[in-house]
């Protein structure tokens, strides 16, 4: 038989954080993927919402592009609040 497609599972926990990738599983269709994700990845109250995406549909950055993609951000230190020295006595900033 053919393998059932692989799905990536994203769960939003009850703490209000964004959906987080938790793992993958196999399912023949989307409805089954959601059911399986519920049974496999939320057995211990881990979530209140499930997304499933076929792994084949995910476009990912390539490791070879790591330098052009991510290195340029390193030099922009002024984007971070710790870059700025505050004078003594300033509060709520």
């Amino acid at each position, binding site marked *: 038989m053919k393998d059932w497609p692989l799905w990536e599972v994203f769960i939003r926990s009850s703490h209000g954080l964004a959906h987080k990738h938790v793992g993958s*599983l*196999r*399912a023949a269709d989307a*409805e*089954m993927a959601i*059911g*399986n994700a519920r*049974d*496999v990845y939320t*057995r211990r109250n881990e979530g209140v919402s499930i997304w499933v995406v076929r792994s084949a549909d995910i476009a990912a950055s390539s490791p070879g592009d790591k330098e052009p993609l991510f290195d340029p951000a390193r030099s922009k230190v002024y984007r971070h609040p710790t870059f700025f020295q505050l004078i003594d006595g300033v509060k709520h900033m």
Partner: protein
Amino acid sequence: MSLFDYVLRLGDNALILGQQLAALTGHGPVIEEDIATANIALDLVGEARLWLSLAGEIEGAGRDEDDLAFLRDEIDFRNLLLVERPNGDFADTMARQFLFDAWHEALLEALSASTDARVAAVAAKSWKEARYHLSHSGGWVIRLGDGTDYSHGRMSGRPAS
């Protein structure tokens, strides 16, 4: 029928079907389905514990869930004959499950409005579980009914080959 008998019947249904599904653990068609089946079995064993504890409480003779589950003779069980049907193959298991779930879900919804608060509480908790069970078995009835000639035949009662 006394309330004790009625609650016992509800407990026996869940107990026997839970036991049957539990026996399938590790023998499913794919791991994901093994895990799903175990979840349904766990829900049913949990439900059985609640009904049997309540039956023991109603009876007032000091019997707990385990006394009622383990220390009765088979002629004293009050379950539906449907849940005693053998597991058979996956189509048999799902047909049994779908018919049971469809009935169980409607029954528990109605019992959630019972005038007996204890019955209503157990029914309301189990109803949520039963709704999921019905969508799971219903999904499989459709998949097998529509899938291949063989699965269609099995789902509509043609003997296994």
